[in-house]
């Protein structure tokens, strides 16, 4: 029975992926991609990977979806040229099938699983959730670089602004009918989302959640508030915005350097202070992730759409 469930779920996942690739029309493709993220989150839940399911739900179904939908709406208005209609492409199909078959073969050829033993080391980190332990302790260098990757992408997006718009607020000039449904929703959601996101960060030490999961939920809430015209988007020059962007990686990096100054290794958190220190780093990271992701999706400062 359980297998039937997984088969049905995977079948649906493949169907929506197929719809996203072969369906005619970009809009259809984007909508299929959003449902794909949703179904994939369910798939991760089936695999018992709760933290991944959270991240996929928030990012795959939420942020990437809104990013693509917004971009599609703007492209439709801006582009003079339409994408040429393409027929089936045998070359591409052969390549895709070959890679899929190779991966499938590799699965059956895989040797018995060998996983590093976390059980002995995890208590030293003070974390009950092994995923958080891996992210913030064992592979802290990855996580630090990852938070900086977000910043690099944001700088890249900002570099796409026009010079005349540089001092304008980020994103488009969002507005909504005062007292309308959209504005009310933008007022109602943030308190709930803020408490839920904070709960995820706090719970992440021992249960499901963590800085990235909480940060993405917060980012989505901030995004809704901005698009509903409730929260005015900041400007690039605003000190508060830029401080929020760097506080997470900054605190993380400085804690790593502090450990070096105290004669321990880079990014070492001694077991005695591991838990509180991790919490501080996580809170700072959450703030940065939430703000970075939200303004990343909002886009560069853009005073008005060009008329073509």
């Amino acid at each position: 029975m359980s297998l039937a469930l997984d088969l049905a779920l995977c079948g649906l996942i493949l169907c929506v992926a197929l719809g996203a690739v072969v369906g005619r029309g970009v809009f259809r493709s984007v909508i299929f991609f959003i449902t794909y993220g949703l179904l994939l989150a369910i798939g991760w839940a089936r695999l018992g990977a709760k933290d991944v399911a959270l991240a996929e739900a928030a990012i795959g179904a939420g942020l990437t979806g809104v990013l693509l939908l917004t971009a599609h709406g703007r492209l439709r208005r801006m582009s003079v040229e339409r994408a040429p209609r393409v027929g089936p492409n045998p070359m591409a199909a052969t390549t895709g099938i070959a890679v899929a078959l190779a991966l499938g073969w590799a699965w059956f050829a895989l040797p018995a699983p060998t996983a590093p033993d976390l059980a002995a080391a995890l208590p030293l980190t003070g974390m009950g959730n092994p995923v958080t332990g891996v992210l913030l302790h064992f592979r802290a260098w990855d996580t630090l670089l990852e938070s900086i990757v977000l910043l690099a992408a944001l700088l890249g997006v900002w570099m796409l602004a026009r010079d005349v718009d540089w001092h304008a607020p980020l994103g488009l000039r969002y507005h909504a009918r005062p007292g309308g449904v959209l504005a009310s929703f933008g007022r109602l959601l943030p308190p709930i989302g803020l408490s839920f996101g904070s709960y995820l960060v706090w719970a992440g030490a021992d249960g499901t959640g963590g800085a990235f999961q909480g940060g993405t939920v917060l980012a989505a809430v901030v995004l809704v508030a901005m698009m509903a015209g409730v929260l005015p988007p900041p400007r690039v020059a605003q000190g508060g915005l830029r401080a929020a962007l760097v506080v997470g990686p900054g605190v993380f990096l400085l804690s790593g350097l502090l450990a070096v100054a105290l004669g321990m290794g880079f990014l070492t958190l001694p077991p005695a202070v591991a838990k509180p220190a991790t919490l501080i780093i996580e809170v700072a990271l959450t703030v940065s992730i939430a703000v970075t992701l939200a303004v990343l999706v909002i886009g560069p400062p853009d005073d008005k759409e060009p008329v073509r």
Partner: protein
Amino acid sequence: MVTDLATYALTGLGLVFFWAGTIGLIRFPDTFSRLHALTKADNLGLGFIALGLAFQADGWATLAMLALIWMLALLAAGTVAQLVARAALSPPEEDEE
């Protein structure tokens, strides 16, 4: 067990509402009636399923979560239905390439 019976009945009812919504979504002839069918049905569906699952809950926290989930889904669905309906009214709806 009475609680199990309640779960069977309520979740079953929820499933029926989901199906009703889906059938409406497939069968109704135009955008607005489809929208109508959908929001009513799937929120009742989710409500009954959450209620049915509540009888299996392992504590107050779980109950609160289930209630919160349903309320949030209601809020989202109501907002979305209203906004999408208005969006479908005003601009030219071309189905692009």
